[in-house]
């Protein structure tokens, strides 16, 4: 730890001093210790770090979570219309009374807090493993910090085809809550499930999810990050894909003063498919960072990154996306697009798309754009009688469509669209 620059060392030590490890970590103990060592070696993110060039890490790193007012709304929560198994966490603490009985054919669901003290557990070889793999070639110290100090989370083992989605609901009730949740999902060969997440979760949320997909498994993930304006979040999704498996993750983010969503995908089996997409809408004090790293390490795999941001009143959007094609990963089909729609001149979009390719027979494309509403299109719509507000919304939704269409399930897509329409409508008055 002493090899770190002084400022980084001080910040890291200050953070660690304010955290305490669980008293009975059980089989997670060794993984937690190793993760703590990683944090100590790497140090927590600091302003000069290249990977944090566009996002200030201070508020995510500092010992105390900055206060975040609790947002109240009379709207029905997202996914309300979906038949699902609900597990509720309030400020990072499991709420058994508000949760469903986690019985679901083909799936076992346990809580990390309880399961870590059992003798033998399937998650033992996974907890912290994908996170640790994800530390190279780029360090993600906030994820290691999570592995070391996570207070709870869910362990989901999928052996068949889950007939209903599992839905993690993160409520935020305390203005100063600081939550560390760590989930592990393992899909056996041919297994299939949909995981939903919604809500802010805490004033400051640090969330890690590790997903292991065996051959032919399929994982669908749809997440809505909660509308509290002052909430902060640092999330990491790590996934490792076996042959012919499918991973699809979509995140919608509306509001939030600071969000850093990292997604680290490793395609290790041939013919696998990994899609990660996001729609972020920010108005005013909003900073949203999508950082994605996709590694192709097998033949004939497909990956897609589709990120769209709508920004106004000085909101900031960041995208850092990389496709790494390792030697031998022939026939890779990699696609990456990041776009922002700037609704005024005060907002900004910062993007760093990267390709690094060590195989010769690959097709990779990437693009990044930033632009305003198309005036000609707007006039065309208005000339047909559609007022300026709804016409602008229509064009905005059209801009977001490519990302939203990444959600395969029609009903889930509609749930998300509904929220997007609501957000846009509220901003018309």
């Amino acid at each position: 730890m002493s090899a770190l620059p002084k400022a980084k060392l001080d910040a890291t030590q200050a953070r660690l001093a304010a955290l305490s490890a669980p008293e009975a970590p059980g089989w997670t103990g060794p993984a937690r210790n190793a993760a703590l060592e990683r944090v100590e070696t790497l140090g927590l993110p600091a302003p000069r770090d290249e990977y944090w060039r566009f996002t200030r890490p201070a508020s995510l790193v500092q010992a105390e979570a900055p206060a975040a007012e609790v947002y109240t709304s009379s709207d029905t929560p997202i996914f309300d219309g979906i038949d699902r198994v609900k597990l509720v966490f309030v400020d990072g603490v499991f709420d058994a009374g508000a949760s469903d009985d986690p019985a679901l054919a083909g799936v076992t669901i346990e809580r990390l807090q309880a399961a870590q003290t059992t003798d033998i557990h399937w998650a033992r070889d996974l907890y912290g493993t994908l996170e640790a793999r994800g530390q190279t070639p780029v360090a993600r110290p906030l994820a290691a910090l999570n592995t070391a100090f996570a207070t709870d989370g869910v362990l989901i083992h999928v052996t068949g085809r889950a007939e209903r989605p599992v839905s993690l609901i993160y409520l935020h009730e305390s203005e100063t809550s600081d939550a560390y949740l760590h989930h592990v999902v393992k899909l056996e060969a041919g297994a299939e499930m949909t995981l939903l997440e919604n809500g802010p979760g805490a004033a400051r949320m640090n969330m890690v999810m590790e997903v292991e997909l065996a051959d032919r498994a399929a994982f669908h993930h749809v997440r809505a990050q909660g509308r509290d304006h002052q909430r902060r979040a640092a999330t990491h999704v790590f996934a490792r894909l076996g042959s012919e498996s499918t991973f699809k993750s979509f995140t919608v983010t509306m509001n939030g003063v600071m969000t850093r969503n990292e997604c680290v995908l490793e395609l290790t089996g041939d013919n696998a498919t990994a899609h990660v997409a996001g729609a972020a809408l920010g108005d005013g004090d909003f900073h949203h960072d999508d950082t994605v790293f996709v590694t192709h390490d097998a033949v004939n795999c497909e990956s897609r990154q589709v990120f769209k941001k709508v920004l106004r009143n000085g909101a900031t959007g960041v995208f850092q996306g990389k496709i790494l094609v390792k030697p031998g990963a022939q026939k890779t089909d990699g696609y990456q697009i990041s776009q922002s729609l700037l609704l005024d001149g005060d907002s900004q979009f910062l993007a760093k798309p990267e390709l690094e390719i060590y195989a010769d027979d690959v097709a990779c494309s990437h693009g990044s754009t930033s632009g305003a509403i198309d005036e000609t299109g707007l006039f065309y719509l208005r000339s047909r009688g559609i007022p300026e507000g709804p016409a602008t919304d229509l064009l905005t939704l059209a801009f977001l469509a490519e990302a939203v269409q990444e959600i395969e399930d029609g009903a889930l897509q509609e749930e998300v669209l509904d929220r997007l329409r609501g957000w846009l409508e509220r901003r018309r008055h």
Partner: protein
Amino acid sequence: MLEIKNLHVKLEEEDKQILKGVDLTVEAGKVHAIMGPNGSGKSTLSYVLSGRDGYEVTEGAATLDGTDLLELEPEERAAAGLFLAFQYPVEIPGVGNMTFLRTAVNAQRKARGQDELSATEFLKVIREKAKALKIDAEMLKRPVNVGFSGGEKKRNEILQMAMLEPKMCILDETDSGLDVDAMKLVADGVNALRDEGRAFLVITHYQRLLDHIKPDVVHIMSDGRIVKTGGPELALEVETNGYADFLEEA
């Protein structure tokens, strides 16, 4: 119905006068045609009437049944019954043609205090009208004008007109880019809408469209003014002699 008086228009950004005193009155139930050389200001007139940004009216007036058009937002002009079939219909990626049309129809109904059409009612009407214009279901599902051929775009404009049932229809070179059969379809579409309460202003370069849509009055526009007004024979004159005669007269 449409009354344009001494309309002067310049570009907002540049010191360039485009319309230099246009006078034009179109009565209800009539079809007027405007012909005129490239760059004479025909499209500019249609844009200014429908409320596009970028132009400044420096003098004159335009009213629709007595309502001052120039004071209204584009959507209010549409709700008042004005429709422009664009010379270059705009592509709108990501917005389905059907969604677009339903939003437009219902926005206008709402502005006029009518109930919105239900999805089924709307579907019934649009299917029928699309069929008449040989627009298939697949084209209705596609994003507005995206990947449409030139002729398909023009037919899509007429479909919008048929759905919105405006009272003042301006058609800016709707015949350009149409094959003979499509021209007939479009003309049939227009003729089906002709009635006493509706008027048309048809901008065209060719007599051929006017064979199908018989105009009551033909105007020649040149350098930002109407320089000659007459009957259908004027269009024939243009077809044989070009514009030289009129330009000299002006």
